[in-house]
């Protein structure tokens, strides 16, 4: 049967991988190509690259890096950041991406989800959502978690699925960087109303947190994290052995 996936996320700015806590105080960690190779060797099931540069030069640097990664690492690659049009899909797919993650671009233009799904297939379109609790409901935030869009996250997830998103990334701003565990309440609420694969993001601090995620919420397909993998406090090879020993199916 299909395994659960462990996915390291690499935020790239000006050609370097960075990781912030609660999206602020971004700190440089390492070279993306080197890190991709290390993660591939340690058994990562997929890699996610977010381009967090805003400039044209930065974007060019990012696609060069993506090509470099895709010529050396042969596992699925998901790319996000600055995806606003189908031309942006085309640009990163040509550089070796397999899936493209849309976030703010889909909020600005919700038709983008359906247009891209039609052109490249549902499996290619990942709807990534930064979600935070506001006045008792789950609210979608845009621009890297800075702006409250007023959109209800449950409705947005349903809209995404109905319009051809093949997968959802749910990133909880409330638990991101805190390392106290995934946001089970938020994930469960969204899993209950959708049937496409869900990648949980935000809050993983140790190996137990991944076990809790897959054990408590069997509907969740993958766990995504950045900092704990980048700083070596959780090694992917150890994590997969740990989960496999606890009967969570893993690619070992």
């Amino acid at each position, binding site marked *: 049967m*299909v*395994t659960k996936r462990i996915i390291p996320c690499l935020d790239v700015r000006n050609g370097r991988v960075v990781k912030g806590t609660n999206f602020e105080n971004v700190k440089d960690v390492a070279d993306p190509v080197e890190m991709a190779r290390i993660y591939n060797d340690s058994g990562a099931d997929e890699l996610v690259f977010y381009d967090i540069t805003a400039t044209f030069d930065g974007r060019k640097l990012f696609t060069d890096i993506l090509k470099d990664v*895709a010529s050396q690492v*042969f*596992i699925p690659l998901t790319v996000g950041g600055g995806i606003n049009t189908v031309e942006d899909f085309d640009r990163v*797919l040509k550089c070796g991406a397999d899936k493209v993650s849309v976030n703010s671009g889909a909020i600005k233009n919700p038709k983008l989800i359906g247009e891209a799904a039609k052109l490249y297939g549902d499996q290619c379109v990942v709807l990534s959502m930064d979600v935070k609790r506001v006045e008792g409901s789950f609210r979608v935030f845009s621009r890297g978690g800075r702006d409250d869009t007023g959109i209800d996250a449950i409705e947005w997830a349903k809209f995404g699925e109905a319009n051809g998103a093949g997968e959802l990334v749910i990133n909880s701003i409330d638990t991101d960087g805190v390392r106290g565990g995934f946001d089970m309440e938020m994930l469960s609420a969204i899993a209950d109303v959708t049937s496409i694969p869900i990648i949980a993001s935000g809050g993983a601090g140790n190996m137990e947190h991944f076990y809790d995620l897959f054990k408590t919420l069997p509907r969740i397909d993958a766990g995504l994290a950045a900092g704990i993998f980048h700083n070596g406090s959780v090694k992917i090879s150890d994590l997969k052995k740990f989960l496999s020993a606890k009967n969570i199916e893993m690619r*070992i």
Partner: protein
Amino acid sequence: MSNNVTAIVDYGVGNLFSLRSSLEFLGCDVIVTDKKEELINAKRIILPGVGAFEDAVKKLRQTGLDETVTVCAKNGKPLLGICLGMQMLFDNSLEYGNHKGLGLIPGSVVPLKGKIDADLKVPHIGWNKLAYKKDEDLFKYIDSEAYVYYVHSYYADTDDSYIIANSDYSIKVTGAVKNANVYGTQFHPEKSGKHGLLMLKAFCEKE
């Protein structure tokens, strides 16, 4: 002629960056081409493909490369179809209608939906364990459990004698097939990490 070229058929379907890169990474002499001559002169051919069956087979026929690929395969040239490229090797596909394939392996391409357990998702996406025939050439470099990466909604329904690997998705989903010199994988070897590369390496040694 002493070439050792592996030719990837370029008929305007999908993204060939990763496939080409994976062969280059392995040190293979690889070309991506839409020219009949280059396919005829190559040592072996890879037929890739993503998207819908009808559209892909139509594009392949428009280029006339369907005939070249078929003739080469019938003359004994090693051929590897990947994903939709594998599906096109069969007699027909029931994806949105009934469309004719290349007929290089007997069998039909049929929907997963209705065959697999109702609570399982379609497309079948992700890493799944591959049960493979140990004595098959394509797997000669693999000596352990192998997981491979799938993305598909239809699968090949064919005689067991052509199936060299499968994966469990409540039913046995056809993973890899072989009919003499014609091979196919439903999964993406170019996205299946180390084990996928080892299969491509084995294919690129075929004469």
